Structures are given as structure tokens and as C-alpha cells.
């Protein structure tokens, strides 16, 4: 990130190649539209390029910072899109991780992380998982989730808190210092 902040295009290219696939997959799951997701991806990386000097490693991991930008922009775009225009686009295997811009190592890292996250998500309850996904992928507040699921707000708060804390524990056990510094 320091190199990117210093306007090192090669470093920026590596950063793009490493995380663009995970960002795009993530945003595609939010937007359900490939063209929109690709467009937002470009905006996300432009913002990264512009604001890399503001990234502070003491405030969190680079991937967290990148995914936070991606999520925020994807959810903002989602609100702008007319729901009628949104079509659920199936993500085919040909669109999957194997791309010209991703290296095999990046693919493996992404897949490895994906497997770890999937395993960790399986370690929490279905309802906890549902609450976390609704918050993270749809940007719903605890109140909105409570309304949607027709559950008491307190239940949702407990479920969300316990779910994320347990997920943290499970991921920390797998990823060690990467997640639990």
C-alpha cells in the first residue's frame, strides 16, 4: 500500500490482481449485475489509487480497507439501481476466479480464504449466519433485519453479536495473527 500511495503503478497492478476477483465476486453478490459490478470495481480501485496515502495500517488490514470501500460503493450503487433493471445474473464458471489478471497464487489465496470462511460460517448457527449476511451483503441495520425477519430487535442484536464474535474466534483459530492481532 505504501508503494501504491507513492504512485507506483506496478504495485497498484499487483494489488488489483490480488484482490480484484474477490472484490468483484463480493460486489456481484450485492449487485447481481456483472456490468454494474465491474463498473463499481473500477470506481473502487480509482478510490484506492487516490486515497492510498490515507490508508493507515494501524487502523486495519489493507484487505479490510479495500473491502470496506467496495462494500460501501456497491451498496450505494445498489440503491441507485432501479430494482426493475436488476437481473439476477448467474455467475458461471467461465466468469469465475480463473482470469487473465489473477495469478495462480492469488487464486489459491482467495480460494483458501474462501474455504476457511465457509468452514467458519458453518461453525455458527443458520440464524446467526443469516443475520450477518443480511447486514454485510444487504447493508440492513439491526432494526431493518428485525423487521424483515419479524423478530425482536434484542434477538437480532444478540444473534448478530454472538454470531460475529464466534466467527471471529473460528477465523482467528484458522488464520491466527492475520485476523487476531
Amino acid at each position: 500500500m505504501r508503494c501504491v500511495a507513492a504512485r507506483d503503478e506496478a504495485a497498484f497492478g499487483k494489488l488489483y490482481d490480488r484482490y480484484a476477483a474477490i472484490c468483484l465476486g463480493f460486489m456481484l453478490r450485492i449487485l447481481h449485475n456483472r456490468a454494474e459490478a465491474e463498473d463499481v470495481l473500477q470506481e473502487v480501485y480509482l478510490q484506492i489509487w487516490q486515497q492510498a496515502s490515507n490508508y493507515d495500517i494501524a487502523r486495519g488490514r489493507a484487505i479490510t480497507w479495500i473491502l470496506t470501500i467496495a462494500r460501501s460503493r456497491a451498496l450505494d450503487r445498489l440503491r441507485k439501481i432501479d430494482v426493475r433493471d436488476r437481473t439476477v445474473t448467474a455467475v458461471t464458471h467461465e466468469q469465475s476466479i480463473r482470469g487473465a489478471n489473477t495469478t495462480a497464487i492469488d487464486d489459491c489465496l482467495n480460494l483458501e480464504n474462501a474455504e476457511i470462511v465457509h468452514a467458519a460460517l458453518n461453525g455458527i448457527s443458520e440464524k446467526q449466519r443469516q443475520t450477518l449476511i443480511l447486514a454485510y451483503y444487504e447493508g440492513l441495520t439491526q432494526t431493518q433485519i428485525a423487521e424483515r425477519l419479524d423478530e425482536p430487535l434484542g434477538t437480532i442484536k444478540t444473534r448478530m453479536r454472538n454470531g460475529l464474535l464466534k466467527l471471529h474466534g473460528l477465523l482467528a483459530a484458522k488464520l491466527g495473527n492475520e485476523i487476531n492481532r
Partner: protein
Amino acid sequence: MNATHTEEHDNLFVVEALGVATADEARQLDALITTHGDGYAARSRELSDTAAMLAFSAMPVAPQQETRARLFAAINANQSPTSLDEDAAQDAVEDTSATQAQPSNVYQLPVPKVTSMPGILVMRRSTFTMSAIAASVLMIALAGVAFAMWRRADAAQVQLAQVQNQARINVAREADEAKRIANELMREREATSAFAAPDSRFAKLKGTATAPAARANLIFNPRTNSAMLYSHALPPAPEGKAYQIWYIADGKPLPGGLFTTNNEGDGSLRDVAPSGSDAASAFAVTLEDALGALEPQGTPVLSGVAS
């Protein structure tokens, strides 16, 4: 982390980490971190990192090459930011209105230099639009050029085929001509050889009443049983007919070879004389069936004796 934190504090960490903190919750969390120090900040980071890992539950999707290319074109073009265009300005107004009408559930990250972002995006969009127009024009031009080149290539291919065909014809003609010349030379050589041979016989054949203008010269070598005949002014043989030479020995005609003539009546024959023809002293030519005859069926058109 500070051991005094409560479930309510954890809840603030969680909603912040998941990006669904309301403005009030965000303020509360900021106040908590300020109050409780690094332990709370670290806790907030840890849970934010955990929440970010949820993105990995989505299937990674490789972006298109064009996205990367456009991105790098944009960052290269981004060195001199442009002002807002009307479209982007409208977008900005709409964004503001939307935010005011329906507050975002997503906690907005502090975005330093945010005032430069619309310019960046406008420029990117403008650059993209101009690039798209330029690409379209270029594509049309390329299509035109490709079509013209295809037409030219097609015409050239036809022309090449014609040239190749003509070349093949010319080569065949040349080969035929060379073969004809070679045959001519061989005949000349044989004629010279036959003429020079001491035991050769010569006969001048004259046209009969059927073809009074016709004439022929014959060289016959009984030792080698070879004969050569050159005719002139013979009427062209009708369809299915040919001229046949007869070697007359002891008053008996022995069948020789067949030949035809060109439109001028010129014809030639290299013949292997039949057995018993070494005694021949007279010769005749008749018009016979094209397959030949064992005995003369037609009327003689040429006849003569050896000198």
C-alpha cells in the same frame, strides 16, 4: 481490551464492523474508543477484519481485461483533473437528495480529498465516453477497411487464379510446342538418316483422278523395314476415315500404316513396313476406314513406284 466492556459495547463493535452502524451508534463508538483507548480500537479493528472476511464467502470472479485497461487508462488520465460536467453534477445532486431523503445504512468512511472524486469520476466517465465513441468510429473505419481489403483480396485472388490458369495454359502450349519441335527434329533426323542410307528407296507418289493435285514423297528402307511418307494437297479425310499406305510386292498390296492430313492436305507417316514388304517396288495410298483394312477397300488417291 478493556475488561469493563459490556455487551452493549460489543454490539457497537459489531454493527460498526458489519458496516451497519447508525450515525448515533458510530458516534457512541468513537466516544468509547476515545474514552477507553487502544484496547477498544484494537477490538474494533479485529471485528472489522472478521466482518471483512465475509466477503470471501462470495465466489471470486475474475474481472474482464477491459476493466483493468480502463482503470489504468483512468489513473493515467487522472493526473490533470477536470471540472464536473452536467451529468456528473446531476448525479451529485441526486446523490445528495437521495442521502437526505433516505439516510444510508452504511457507515460512510471518512474520505479525505473527497472534493476531487467527482472530478475524477467525471473525467473517467468523459474519458470512457470519448473512448467509446472513438472506439466505435475506429471499429466502423476498420470494418470499412477490412471490407475493402477483403474485396481487393477477393479480386486479387480471382486475378491470381486467372494468371495461374493462363500460366498453366502457356506452359502446356510451350510443352506441346517443344514436343512438336522435338518430333520434327527427330523426323528430320530420321529422314536425313533414311535419305543418307545407301539401301533406301525413294518414291514420288502422284495423285490419281480422285485427287489429281495430291502428291507425296516416300522413303523406304527394306533393311530396317522403316518408311516415311510426306503428303501434300490430299483432300481431308472424312469423319471415320483415314488414309492407308500399301506396300505392293509381287503385285500384292501389303497393308501399311494409317495417317490423316491437316486442312492443307499435308500429312506424314512414320511406318514400320509389314513383313514381306522388302520386295515392294510400288506404293499406293487409299482412303479406308479409320481402323484400317487388311486389303484395299477404297479407291487409290496416290500411287507411284520406287526409283
